[in-house]
């Protein structure tokens, strides 16, 4: 039986990845709102996912406000698909 990817098998990181798998890109505020997390925690988890190469994080400006845009990478997409496949195996789906 395949082991569940420990990087994805945590509540907030999995929530972030699930959202990003469903949209092309999302900004920090959107992710914070949808995951109902704190800015600090979200920031830490985004860094972890980014370091693993699962998401890309682009910091820019929108008018006068800073805007951080996140998108899932090819490696992230593959890791997520593998994770879901492993989940199905565990649950006999």
């Amino acid at each position: 039986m395949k082991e569940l990817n420990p990087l994805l098998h945590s509540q907030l990181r999995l929530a972030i990845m699930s959202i990003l798998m469903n949209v092309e890109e999302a900004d920090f505020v959107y992710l914070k709102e949808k995951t109902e997390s704190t800015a600090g925690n979200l920031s830490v988890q985004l860094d972890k996912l980014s370091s693993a190469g699962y998401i890309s994080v682009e910091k820019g400006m929108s008018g006068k406000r800073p805007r951080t845009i996140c998108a899932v990478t090819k490696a992230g997409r593959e890791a997520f698909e593998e994770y879901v496949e492993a989940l199905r195996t565990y649950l006999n789906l």
Partner: protein
Amino acid sequence: MEEKQLTEKESLELIASMIARTKTRYLGSRKMLMWGYLVVITAISVWVLVASTHNLVWNWLWFAIPLIGFPTTSMMSHSQQRHRGATSYSDKVTSRLWTIFGISEIVLIIMCLGFYLLGETDCSGAILVYSILMTSGAEIAQGLIVRENCLIYGGIIGLLVGMITVCCIVGDIPLNVNWYMPLFILAWIVTMIIPGHILSNKEKQQ
């Protein structure tokens, strides 16, 4: 949301719940309504002014459409991007589709102006035909992408009016202001304003 370990079942539930939270669809009703009302108000103004004064100089008012429409669209896109926070694949595809149409329309207007100013050839009919046919085509494509029948049906009616316009121009039938303008206005109401309001209601319900 805390950073905690999950059971397999909880993981699957979390994925489903996050997907459901991102389901809100953006249908672009505000831009459609802006363009629809802009074209209809301009067309009515030109119609009334030309019919009452018999002076064709009022046709220059048509240029209000790109001059107001394109900068307003750009501002709406920026504010919408800030407001929504996420972009889906279908948002990107439809946005690019309309951008290509918008740019090609600007190029065509410049070309027609060039023909008129350099060669004194009036090919303004091309702008009319192109705008109706391309708007309708782009609307049908958007309708297919976002699965909205009102866009498909509105686009088909627009296409029919575009075809009538082409036949009239090719067959040398004058596009008389008294019959063509009401048809043109009706086409834009059916193509942009009615679907725009339908989509606006759907967006509010979300």
